[in-house]
């Protein structure tokens, strides 16, 4: 049952082969056994999970059913949960207990899912390696000396080691897709505005988007069906008719036009990564898909643009952490100004401070036009590259990241080097487009490789279809690391 799909779990629950309490105990046992080594969870609340499970079993006993009723789901510790602490991976919020649930948490609750626990993450979602968490680094289940990616690295590692059947993540510049790629799981970042940001602690508001992570695309469709939808409490939530994201899963891929951006296959991409991605593309060609070479000429500007916009928005969003209404307050201070400065210096880690300072600088008097406005203009050029490309293709494919998971510590002394690893995920984030990571094999060291599929606005069902068809013919997504046998 640990490696079963959500629909298999749901069928077992429906036929009473297993109860939700038993299923939840199975995963709680796995967490108890493995979390000491992997550090994927910041908080695993067994009594709460078992209470949710018992409630789900009671609902089923009254004749209710549903695809997620009684299914345990882990949540990135960026989603506020009433009564369970929400840390965002920071000392600033180490003891914070939210007085309300995030919209996404409420939706899972209404669907009868079990809240398994809160997963580790880079502090305030700022990082690509999960080494910036106040609660310690997360280990990659495929190679414990390597990073799991970030910032949703705890969710990725939890699914990869089968400590959770599925998890939530958030993606600002690649934080769902890149850790999914590094740990051999599947993840989708929806179109900006599809999933409500209410109760999702803000990093860069024009980019942040929640999404599901799991083993396969069919699981992601079931999860997205619950997560997506209009919420008046998020002013950027889109008021659209609800969709069934599973509706196209069985559609054949013959005739699919796959765009291959030449900028995603050039120098700087590991040979193993390029080879595995090309193998996957050849599989699609074998099924009757057509490939077309495209160009996204402003790709190389995406990282610089992102590192203006995201820190600028972060410096504004994180000004709320002032030691007054919630979060860490310094023990000693002479006056209000010093209370702010010391509380923030003590509560934030190095990477978060770096980004706040960069953001403060680019927004400061005399620099706004040269940095923030210029970055917003180039953002439009990058979005324009995609709209030109989608005139010629239905889906864009390439690697999620130029490399597989690197060793812990390899990038920590050089933030710019780490930032450049997000070159293939940031462009879709800037444009607001949906993108996903699909496991497509392993490199020579045995580390997973992710195929990225980027679709046009609101094409999540098509992306999930493409991934599902590939996953019916391959087993990369159901492989389990040798070190953590079931």
């Amino acid at each position: 049952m640990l490696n079963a799909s959500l629909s298999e779990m749901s069928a077992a629950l429906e036929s009473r082969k297993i109860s939700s309490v038993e299923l939840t105990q199975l995963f709680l046992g796995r967490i108890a056994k493995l979390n000491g080594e992997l550090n994927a969870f910041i908080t695993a609340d067994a009594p709460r999970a078992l209470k949710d499970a018992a409630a789900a079993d009671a609902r089923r006993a009254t004749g209710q059913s549903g695809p997620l009723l009684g299914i345990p789901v882990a949540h990135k510790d960026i989603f506020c949960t009433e009564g369970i602490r929400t840390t965002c991976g920071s000392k600033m919020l180490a003891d914070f207990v939210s007085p309300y649930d995030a919209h996404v948490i409420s939706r899972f609750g209404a669907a009868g899912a079990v809240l398994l626990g809160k997963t580790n993450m880079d502090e305030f979602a700022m990082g690509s390696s999960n080494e910036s968490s106040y609660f310690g680094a997360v280990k990659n289940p495929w190679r414990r000396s390597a990073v799991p990616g970030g910032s949703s690295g705890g969710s990725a590692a939890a699914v990869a080691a089968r400590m959770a059947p599925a998890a939530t993540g958030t993606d600002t510049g690649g934080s769902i897709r890149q850790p999914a790629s590094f740990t051999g799981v599947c993840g989708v970042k929806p179109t900006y505005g599809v999933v409500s940001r209410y109760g999702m602690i803000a990093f860069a508001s024009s980019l942040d988007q929640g999404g599901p992570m799991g083993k396969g695309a069919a699981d992601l469709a079931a999860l997205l069906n619950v997560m997506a939808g209009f919420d008046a409490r998020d002013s950027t939530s889109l008021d659209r008719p609800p969709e069934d994201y599973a509706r196209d899963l069985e559609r054949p891929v013959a005739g699919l036009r796959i765009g291959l951006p030449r900028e995603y296959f050039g120098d700087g991409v590991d040979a193993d990564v390029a080879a595995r991605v090309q193998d996957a593309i050849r599989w699609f060609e074998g099924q009757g898909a057509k490939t077309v070479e495209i160009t996204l000429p402003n790709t190389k500007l995406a990282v610089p643009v992102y590192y203006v916009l995201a820190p600028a928005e972060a410096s504004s969003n994180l000004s709320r952490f002032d030691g007054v209404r919630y979060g860490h307050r310094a023990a000693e201070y002479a006056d209000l100004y010093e209370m702010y400065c010391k509380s923030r210096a003590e509560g934030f880690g190095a990477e978060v401070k770096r980004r706040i300072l960069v953001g403060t600088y680019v927004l400061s008097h005399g620099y706004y036009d040269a940095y923030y406005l210029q970055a917003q203009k180039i953002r439009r050029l990058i979005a324009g590259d995609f709209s030109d490309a989608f005139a010629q293709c239905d889906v864009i494919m390439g690697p999620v990241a130029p490399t597989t998971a690197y060793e812990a510590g390899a990038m920590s002394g050089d933030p710019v080097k780490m930032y450049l690893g997000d070159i293939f995920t940031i462009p879709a984030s800037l444009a607001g487009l949906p993108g996903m990571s699909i496991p497509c094999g392993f490199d020579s060291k045995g580390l997973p490789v992710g195929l990225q599929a980027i679709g046009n606005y609101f094409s999540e069902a098509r992306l999930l279809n493409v991934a599902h068809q590939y996953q019916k013919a391959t087993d990369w997504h159901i492989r389990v690391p040798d070190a953590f046998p079931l």
Partner: protein
Amino acid sequence: MSLDLEQIRRIARLARIAVSDAEAADTAASLSGVLGLIGEMQAVDTTGIEPMAHALDAQVSSAQRLREDKAVEPDRRTAYQASAPAVQDGLYLVPRVVE
């Protein structure tokens, strides 16, 4: 593009983050690296390009949705203040600002 220590102190003051003299040099070096990266976009000619403030402004109206100007939320002050470092009589406590 590199920042000197005086610029670092000014930015840190604006951001309300205490930076010690010992940290300032490291901060200057790492921020200069990031600004070097950002500098790559300065050479791009963006004459006549509209800034893009919202990820979907070409797809949907970028105007923010407004709600009716009516109180709808229940009073949950006690619950909200439970996570504050210091409160008294329903008020947040901070050091005295006005003598």
